[in-house]
């Protein structure tokens, strides 16, 4: 059976994530995708675009505004309901877990739009994972720099070599049952307090 292309509107203040979703939709063969970052004047945009599906992130405080338009506004000509079928509890849970919500024009068949939601959920999850990995990488880099500074302080004040300084930090961390970076942080802080020039 041949269907007309669905028009999809993605509302997301995070431009990177919006682009990731858009790419996913295009890969899946949806060419009528519009990204909106700013919700100002959104009623007009929806009126002009007449989207079949609207995808929005849960961090967006404007969801209440968006829903009120669907319910009450004369600007939106076609009734729009919650995307997920009320009986499809698993999809609802997956969407909320992933931090995404979607709305669909009333009467559109579930199977036509399910793939769009599934894609949005997986892209949202992928984006969160990427953010977490990025955070972890940033933290790791910061920790490594901190340990280097702590070693430098030990080498200078105690007149020891790099290996010895590293061993000393490691031993202290083990004895105190703390992380190496915490010991390094304490040392750097103490050193700054004692000698602001260092």
């Amino acid at each position: 059976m041949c269907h007309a292309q669905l028009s999809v509107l993605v509302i997301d203040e995070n431009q990177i994530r919006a682009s990731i979703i858009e790419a996913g939709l295009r890969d899946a063969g949806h060419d009528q995708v519009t990204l909106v970052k700013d919700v100002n004047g959104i009623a007009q945009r929806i009126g002009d675009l007449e989207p079949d599906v609207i995808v929005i992130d849960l961090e967006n405080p404007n969801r209440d505004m968006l829903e009120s338009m669907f319910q009450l506004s004369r600007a939106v000509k076609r009734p729009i309901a919650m995307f997920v079928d009320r009986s499809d509890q698993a999809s609802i849970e997956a969407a909320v877990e992933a931090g995404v919500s979607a709305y669909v024009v009333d009467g559109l068949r579930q199977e036509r739009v399910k793939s769009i939601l599934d894609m949005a959920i997986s892209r949202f999850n992928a984006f969160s994972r990427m953010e977490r990995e990025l955070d972890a990488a940033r933290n790791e880099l910061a920790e490594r720099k901190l340990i280097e500074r702590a070693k430098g302080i030990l080498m200078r004040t105690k007149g020891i070599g790099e290996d010895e300084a590293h061993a000393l930090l490691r031993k202290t961390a083990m004895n105190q049952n703390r992380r190496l970076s915490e010991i390094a942080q304490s040392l750097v802080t103490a050193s700054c307090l004692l000698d602001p020039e260092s």
Partner: protein
Amino acid sequence: MPGADLYEIRAGFLPLLDSAILVVAREKGFAKAEAIDLTLIRENSWANIRDRMAVGHFQMAHMLGPMPIAACLGLTPLQLDVVAPMALGLGGNAVTVSRRLADELAQDGDPGGLDATMNIKRLARVVRRHNAEHELPLSFAVVHPFSAHNYDLRYWLAAGGIDPEQDVRIVVVPPPLMADALNSGQIDGFCVGEPWNSLAVKLGAGVIVTTKSAIWRSSPEKVLAVSATFAADQPSAVAAVLRALYRSAEWCGNPENHEELAVLLARKEYVGQDQAVILPALQGKLRYQDDEVATVQDFFVPFDKAATFPWQSHALWFYSQMVRWGHAVWDPDSVERAAQAYRPDLYRAAIAPLGAAVPAANAKVEGALKTPMHAGSSDGSLILGPDGFFDDRVFDPEQIETYVREQQV
């Protein structure tokens, strides 16, 4: 009971003054004393609160009073089975207009302060003038279609002869964005909970023209919504939460605690605004314009006057307004379901053992008390009211059909 198993409760809330009872239950140990490990999760839309309750992330939440009714009538986009066994205080909202609109109102006669009657008359004249000269009507924002803000504002406008559907536009804006929307001219006024009115005044964006307490004294606002499944499966946990929140409300209502409460709410994980804009609403001393301060009786009532009792007459009044504005259809079955969304029976079962004064009735005639009155209660010490509507109308839940029919749209 130290050492005993704790009930783990996750509750969602929005950054508003009337999240106070939940915040204090956690921060001042009232939850712990009832063996509840209460985790509060700040959300940024009522839609998120609804969705996260629907999928079971929250067992309970801070919720707009009409929302559980909308849910019970099947009007929410996502199915939501909740009950409201407790109210989270009375009052707490105000209507703020832009500086420009305030200037127009001021040209229309003597300053009206926060007087609901005087200011709606002046607003009606300004709206008529505006609509004769402009194509676009003035627009007012509320936080959600199913909110006391929406119904209070509409009630006030309609009583003043302004048709909220035809003469003005009512839009939805999230509370933290209200002041900006006013400043940028996107909207001309709004009805929102505190501290967002006080903040708009402080930023020089707006002037408060009346309060919820002036439109309808001692009127319902937020409720505690509890998942219907959780309420059925864990009645003792729900009762423990209600007791904790009752004690918390008592603490919040004590003027001696207001400064400490403002400091608590100011924290970034709660309301996240300067305590200086939170305190006035707690003390009922609103800075409504520049340096003009007004003392407002019963601006926000967290405890006195049975402020946490979930009156079914409040639920029915909300339903009457939902019908009035075409948000719900009228039928006797819906009346019953709307009333049952609020559960005074659960409240009474939990609170009465504390020896507290709990109303004996489930509903009352709203707007009938001109002065504070003793009310029928478990120990006879309960005082209710005054609770008048500014236009002196009375809502008798027994006569809801007549009330709905006589409402002018």
